[in-house]
C-alpha cells in the first residue's frame, strides 16, 4: 500500500486534508470498514478522480468531505474547517449520479432551488441562473421542464445547479455513470472547459479508467475490503486536453498505471 502523504502538510494551497481517516459502518452483518487509514491532500484547483471497484469507499470518501458521513477516527478538514462547518458555509456543490431535478419546477426554477434556500435576492437569482445555464450550454432551456430534456441535458442542469452558488469545491459522484458513452465523452469535454473557466477544485468519483485519466490532474486509486487508497497518480498530461489525447502514449501509460493499481488492490483479497 502506498498511501501518499504530501510533505508540506498544511500548505496554504490545500483545500482538503485527510489524516489517518477511518470509517466503520455498523451493519446487521457486523462492522464494515468502509475507509481505512486514508491520507490525502487535495490542492486548490485540482481535478481529483477517485477510481476503484464498488465497495472501495470512493463515494464514502466524497460523502465524508461533504459531511454526509462522519469518520469514525482520524481528521479531515475542508478549507481548514471541519466538513460540517464547511457544509454550513456552503463550501461545495454536490452532483449525484442521478440529476434529481424536481419535476414540478422548470430548469431555471430547479437551478434557483439552492439560491432560494440560501436567501439570494430575486435579481441575483435570475442573474446567476442565466450565467450557469450559459456555462453548461443550456441557455434557452430555462423555461423547460425536466421531462422535456434528454438525460445528458438533465445532468448538465444538475451541474448548473451545483455551480449556481459560490462554492469553490465541486463534488461529483459518478455524474455521468448513467449516460451512454457518446454523451459521456461530450460532457467530459465540456466539464474540462468548465473547470478551466471557473477555477474550481473538483472531486470526481468514477469507475471508468479513461474518464479518470482524461479528466484528472490527480488520480486516486482505491481498493475494497477494507476501503483504502492504493495509489495516487499525478497526471503529467497538459491542462489543454482535446479528446484525441486519449490516443497518446502518455495517456496510455497513465491508464496502464491506474490499471496496475486496481489489480494490486484486488490481489490482496
Amino acid at each position, binding site marked *: 500500500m502506498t498511501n501518499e502523504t504530501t510533505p508540506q502538510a498544511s500548505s496554504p494551497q490545500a483545500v482538503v486534508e485527510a489524516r489517518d481517516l477511518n470509517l466503520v459502518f455498523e451493519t446487521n452483518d457486523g462492522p464494515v470498514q468502509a475507509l481505512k487509514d486514508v491520507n490525502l491532500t487535495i490542492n486548490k484547483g485540482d481535478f481529483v478522480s477517485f477510481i476503484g471497484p464498488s465497495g472501495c469507499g470512493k463515494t464514502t470518501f466524497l460523502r465524508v468531505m*461533504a459531511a*454526509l458521513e462522519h469518520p469514525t477516527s482520524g481528521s479531515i478538514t475542508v478549507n481548514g474547517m471541519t466538513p460540517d462547518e464547511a*457544509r454550513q458555509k*456552503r463550501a*461545495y456543490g454536490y452532483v*449525484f449520479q*442521478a440529476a*434529481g431535478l424536481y*419535476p414540478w419546477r422548470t430548469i431555471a426554477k430547479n437551478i434557483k432551488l439552492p439560491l432560494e*434556500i440560501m436567501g439570494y435576492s430575486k435579481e441575483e437569482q435570475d442573474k446567476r441562473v442565466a450565467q450557469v445555464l450559459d456555462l453548461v450550454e443550456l441557455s434557452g432551456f430555462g423555461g423547460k421542464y425536466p421531462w422535456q430534456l434528454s438525460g445528458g441535458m438533465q445532468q448538465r442542469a444538475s451541474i448548473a445547479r451545483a455551480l449556481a452558488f459560490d462554492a469553490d469545491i465541486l463534488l461529483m459522484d459518478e455524474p455521468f455513470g448513467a449516460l451512454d458513452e457518446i454523451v459521456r465523452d461530450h460532457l467530459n469535454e465540456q466539464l474540462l472547459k468548465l473547470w478551466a473557466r471557473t477555477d474550481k477544485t473538483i472531486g470526481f468519483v468514477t469507475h471508468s479508467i479513461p474518464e479518470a485519466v482524461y479528466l484528472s490532474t490527480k488520480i486516486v486509486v482505491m481498493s475494497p475490503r477494507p476501503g483504502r487508497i492504493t495509489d495516487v497518480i499525478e497526471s503529467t498530461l497538459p491542462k489543454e486536453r482535446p479528446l484525441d489525447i486519449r490516443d497518446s502514449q502518455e495517456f496510455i501509460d497513465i491508464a496502464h498505471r491506474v490499471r496496475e493499481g486496481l489489480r494490486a488492490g484486488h490481489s490482496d483479497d
Partner: protein
Amino acid sequence: MKNILAVLTVVAAIIAFWYAACVPMNIKGVLDQAERAGTEVSPATAKERRDMGTFGLVASNTFAIADTWAQDRPRLPAPHQVAVELWKTTVEKKITSKRSLIYHGQVTLSATLLGFAIGTGLGILLAVGIVHSKVMDMSVMPWAIVSQTIPIIALAPMIIVVLYSIGVQGILPKAIISAYLSFFPVVVGMVKGLRSPDHMQLDLLKTYNASTAQGFWKLRLPSSLPYLFASLKIGIAASLVGAIVGELPTGAVAGLGARLLAGSYYGQTVQIWSALFAAAILAALLVALLGLIERLVLKRMGMSA
C-alpha cells in the same frame, strides 16, 4: 368505442339480473294481493304458498311475473321504479320540499364537506407530526389504526350524545363523525407521501444546509401531492358514509340518512333504494370532482405519470 360497448354490456347484465331477482323476491306479495283481488292463484291460500319455494310459485303463476315489477311496496323494487322515484324526488319536486332528495342531499353534503375539511386538515397535521417526530410516529400511528377498528355505527350515537350534553348540535356532530372516518386515509397517504423523497433528494438539501422547514415546503410537500390526492378520494367517500351514519341514530329529520331511516320505518323500499342511489351518485360526483382537480394540479406540476 369498444370500451363503451363493454361497459354497457356489464351495466345491462346487472340490470337484467336485478329485474330477474325482483321476480322471486316479490312473487309472494303479488300473489297475496291477487288473491285478495279475487284472481285465481295456485296454490290458493297464503299458508300453502308460504311453505312453497319461490321459484315453484313463479313457475305455477307465470301471469304474475309482470306485476312483480310494479308493486307499491315491493321487497325489492325494480330498476325503473327506483329511477322514476329518483326523477320525481329530484327534478319534479321543488328543492325546498321536505320530499326532495336534492334538499336531503345538500343537508348530507354540507356535513360531508365540513367533516372532510376537518378530517383532511387533521390528517395532514398528524402526518406532518408523524414524519418529523419519532415520538409522534410511535405514539399516534397505533391509535390512528385502532380508531378505525371500532365500528362507526357503535361510536356514532356516543359521539352525538356526548356532544349534545355539552351543547353541540346541528351539523357539527355529523361532521365530526365524517372527520373521524376521513382523517385516517389522509394520515396514511400523507405519511407515505411526505416520506417519498429518496435519500439522494434529502442529501442534496443537506448539502445546501437547508432547514427542516425549507425541506418540507420545497421538497416533501410537493412530493406528497400524488399520495394526498389518492387519499382524498378515499377520504371523501368515507366522509359521506360518516355523515349518513351520523344521521341514523339521531332521528334526524333531514339528510339522506334520515330519508333511509324514514323509508325503513314505513316499509317504503322504493324510497330507501332511491336514497341509496342518491348517496352513491353523490359519492361518485365528489370522487370524480377530486379526480379532475388531481389531473389538473398534477399536470400543472409535471407529475402526471
